[in-house]
């Protein structure tokens, strides 16, 4: 532990001389969290819709009202000829076009099948899927409503309520647990905590070491009898401390700005955050043993961040990934930490519930730290 105190004091002096480190460590993550937390939404509402109503009577109007009431669609234009209808879609002003045929009301009154044409811009697959499902559901509901009122007049029915009114034979009673309002923030914000923690610690630690390598001060340190452990701990402890304070701050933003309550054990959450922090520090150290310059460190750090963001289940559900990619996601530490964060914050999961993820994270942590400490030598070349 030769010289640990010396290195610690020196790192603190660097931070004091360069307060921008603290801005990067504390202020930037909170801003990022706030901005991303508000910006990232997966529930899609108010899809811009153009209506070409050739019917123009009661039934047609009812259909358009039902469309608007679903909140999935908002009518941006009503057109009166085929050309305008097509242009509205081609220009991108509307993403969905609804065309009601001229004899819509008559056909319904006569008991014939009426066809409503719904054209959907498929370029944005998420919007298109939502529009497709919502439109189909709307059609089904409208049909059922009409079907039920017709069935009232028949003697034999598939099912009836106790009061004798006709009912659907099967009623699905679905209840949303943990996030009943389906707020995207509840799903994304806890995940964002993990991503931001890794981003900040990875950059801070890899820079702290690579900067010294670049300036030649690391070589100067190698010539002193300072121990390898002291050198490593002295460099890492200040950033571990910063990382931990940052975690607490970011969690405060989660609770107080986004109103996502931490349902589970806060102590367990902080303890497991510490384990993840250690892993992120290890990653930073690993990057610093690979990079000779700060520019290279940035490149390596991005190389680490990319899969962490895209493959960890932060943005895209891992269940939907092709098998090889799904297997890769097990090698990414954030994957486990996201499960832990969402588990504790949203579902009040206990340590026993999270055991597989904790084991996975601990394994990653052990491997990364061992590898980076082994690679970090008090020697050049």
């Amino acid at each position, binding site marked *: 532990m030769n010289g640990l105190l010396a*290195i610690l004091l020196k790192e603190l002096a*660097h931070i004091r001389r360069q307060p921008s480190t603290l801005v990067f460590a504390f202020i930037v993550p909170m801003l990022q969290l706030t901005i991303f937390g508000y910006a990232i939404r997966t529930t899609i509402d108010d899809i811009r819709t153009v209506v070409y109503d050739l019917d123009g009577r009661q039934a047609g109007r009812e259909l358009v009202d039902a469309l608007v009431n679903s909140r999935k669609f908002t009518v941006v234009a009503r057109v009166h000829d085929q050309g305008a209808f097509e242009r509205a879609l081609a220009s991108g002003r509307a993403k969905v076009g609804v065309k009601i045929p001229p004899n819509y009301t008559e056909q319904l009154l006569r008991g014939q099948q009426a066809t409503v044409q719904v054209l959907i811009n498929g370029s944005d697959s998420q919007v298109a899927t939502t529009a497709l499902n919502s439109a189909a559901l709307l059609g089904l509901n409208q049909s059922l409503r009409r079907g039920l009122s017709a069935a009232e007049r028949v003697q034999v029915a598939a099912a009836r309520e106790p009061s004798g009114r006709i009912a659907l034979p099967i009623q699905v009673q679905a209840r949303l647990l943990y996030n009943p309002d389906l707020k995207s923030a509840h799903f994304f914000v806890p995940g964002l905590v993990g991503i931001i923690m890794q981003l900040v610690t990875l950059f801070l630690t890899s820079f702290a070491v690579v900067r010294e390598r670049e300036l*030649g001060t690391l070589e100067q340190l190698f010539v002193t009898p300072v121990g390898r452990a002291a050198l490593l701990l002295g460099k890492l402890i200040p950033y571990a401390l910063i990382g931990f304070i940052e975690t607490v701050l970011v969690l405060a933003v989660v609770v107080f700005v986004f109103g996502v309550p931490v349902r589970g054990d806060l102590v367990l959450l902080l303890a497991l955050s510490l384990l993840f922090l250690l892993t992120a520090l290890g990653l930073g150290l690993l990057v610093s043993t690979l990079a000779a310059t700060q520019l290279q460190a940035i490149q390596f750090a991005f190389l680490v961040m990319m899969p962490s963001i895209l493959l960890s289940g932060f943005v895209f559900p891992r269940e939907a990934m092709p098998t090889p990619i799904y297997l890769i996601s097990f090698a990414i530490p954030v994957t486990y930490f996201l499960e832990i964060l969402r588990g504790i914050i949203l579902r009040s999961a206990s340590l026993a519930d999270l055991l597989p993820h904790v084991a996975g994270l601990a394994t990653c942590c052990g491997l990364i730290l061992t590898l980076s400490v082994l690679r970090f030598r008090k020697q050049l070349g």
Partner: protein
Amino acid sequence: MTPADTAANVIEADRLTRRFGELVAVREVSFAVPRAAIFGFLGPNGSGKSTLIRMLCGVLRPSGGRGVVLGRDVAQQAEAIKQRIGYMSQRFSLYADLSVAENLDFYGRIYGLRGPRLNARKNELAELVGIRPLTRQLAGTLSGGWKQRLALACALIHEPDVLFLDEPTAGIDPVARRELWDLLFGLAGRGVTLFVTTHYMDEAERCTHVAYLHLGRLVIWGRPADLKQLQTVTPPGTRRLEIRCPQPPAVLARLRTLAGVQDATLFGEALHVLVNEDLPDETLVRAAGLAPPGIELRPIAPTLEDVFVTLSRRETCRTVA
């Protein structure tokens, strides 16, 4: 006292070699540095000086051969060596965003100095290198000469037995250079062994021992006086002369074509020539197209530059052959 303290040689290299892939940066270099010597290592850029110093300081593993510093093997006992050596690298490698005092504090603490002991040592060194008035200044804002003094002070904080200096005077002004050398002489006077690389020939003349590295090979090493006596530098049957005359460059061209002239070089306002002993002064003067008044001829000993130039030419010839 460990055996190392009584050994005559503080540094010993025995066929020390370092390869970087295909490139052999240092090839089978052997020499010995006695206690309190000022050992000057010369050689052009890229000749392997820094690589050699890094191996001796224990931060670069030798690919072959053996290096011993203070009785300890550089490959096996590097950490023990580091306790007792100081190192000043080629470029400024202190913390620019820390003050002079903070840099000294840092290195003092690294070597385990604490409290009053650290303060006393810090003051002593600030006094020695004369940096006391600037202790609160940030290291990054010092001029080149002051940076080197601070680096020297940091390298000396633990009173090392051996001080390695990699081109300590590169890029600093002549006054600072002279003052730094005065400091180094003072240290050698106190028994510190100095290992200095440089490519200034005049600095080589100040050393007690010199070595010349060329393309990773050690061309020669020894005391300057001994090197100047070498027969290969001034072969039997030849003599060295200094010629002072008007317009030496024009004369140089004529001399080089003259039979019996082995070598001729411009040296400031004079010419240094190596001629066959049987070539009389008069012939030389006449052949050079000079008239006797206003010209001076005197026999001289070779300078270190002569020694290194002659020997590295032979070395290059041998390598090419």
